[in-house]
């Protein structure tokens, strides 16, 4: 069944603060097999001009995925989660995420579409520090495959 076009533009309350730790960044880098010292060694990161170790460019998903989950859990969003696959993902970075950041994620429904019996839901999650400095925007398109 089609998603309600009136959902476009709906925003959700900001998430709780996600405090970015050095260990979380190191584990994410290790999971991608990256040994770049800017992810692992605060001195190397400072030598490269960063205040602390920086996260790989897709690290934001660790907090934006659960923020997008808030949208899927909205009872007005009629999406069969058991049939959902990740269709597209986009990141726009204002600056790298770094250890010590205290981040807040705010989801907004950007688009709903119905294509060939599939429901497409596009959610943008804006990530900022708790002081309001924009850090990145993560846009996810989820596809609920039609039951046919």
């Amino acid at each position: 069944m089609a998603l309600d076009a009136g959902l476009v533009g709906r925003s959700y309350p900001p998430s709780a603060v996600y405090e970015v730790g050095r260990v979380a960044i190191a584990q994410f880098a290790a999971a991608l097999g990256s040994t770049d010292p800017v992810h692992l060694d605060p001195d190397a990161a400072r030598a490269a001009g960063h205040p602390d170790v920086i996260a790989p460019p897709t690290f934001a998903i660790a907090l934006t995925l659960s923020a997008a989950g808030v949208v899927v859990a909205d009872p007005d969003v009629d999406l069969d989660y058991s049939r959902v696959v990740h269709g597209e993902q986009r990141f726009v970075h204002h600056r790298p995420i770094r250890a010590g950041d205290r981040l807040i994620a705010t989801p907004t429904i950007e688009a709903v579409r119905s294509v060939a019996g599939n429901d497409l839901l596009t959610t943008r999650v804006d990530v900022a520090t708790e002081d309001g400095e924009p850090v990145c925007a993560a846009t996810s398109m989820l596809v609920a495959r039609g039951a046919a």
Partner: protein
Amino acid sequence: MTARVRAADVAVGTELPERVYTVTRADLVRYAGASGDFNPIHWSDRVATSVGLPGVIAHGMLTMGLAGRAVSDWAGDPAALAEYQVRFGRPVVVPDDDTGAEVTVRGRVAALLDEGRVRVDLTVTSGGEKVLSLARAVVRLG
């Protein structure tokens, strides 16, 4: 905080070094823990086949992360990726063996933008099939 590759050194058509990554079940477990994505289609054959998949598949975000690493390693600076987007086309099926699946990342400079930025278009394949489409990054070069 600047990339090792300089904008002046690249042109439209400049190719990134091809990178081949191996993805095993152990890598999926590690990525699940690091990302917080514990969807069982990435670790349970029973669940994966029950939803019509051929078997356990890699997290699309792991494939995206590996392709992003290929770009970061080329540029010499993970902070250089200003924008990065992909469409998840086909899943990467990861067998329960010691060999795993291979993910091959190729890239080329597709456009020169302002302020030393370039657009890199990526071709990401596994088993000869394209697994990501419309995969592109805007990279700030030195």
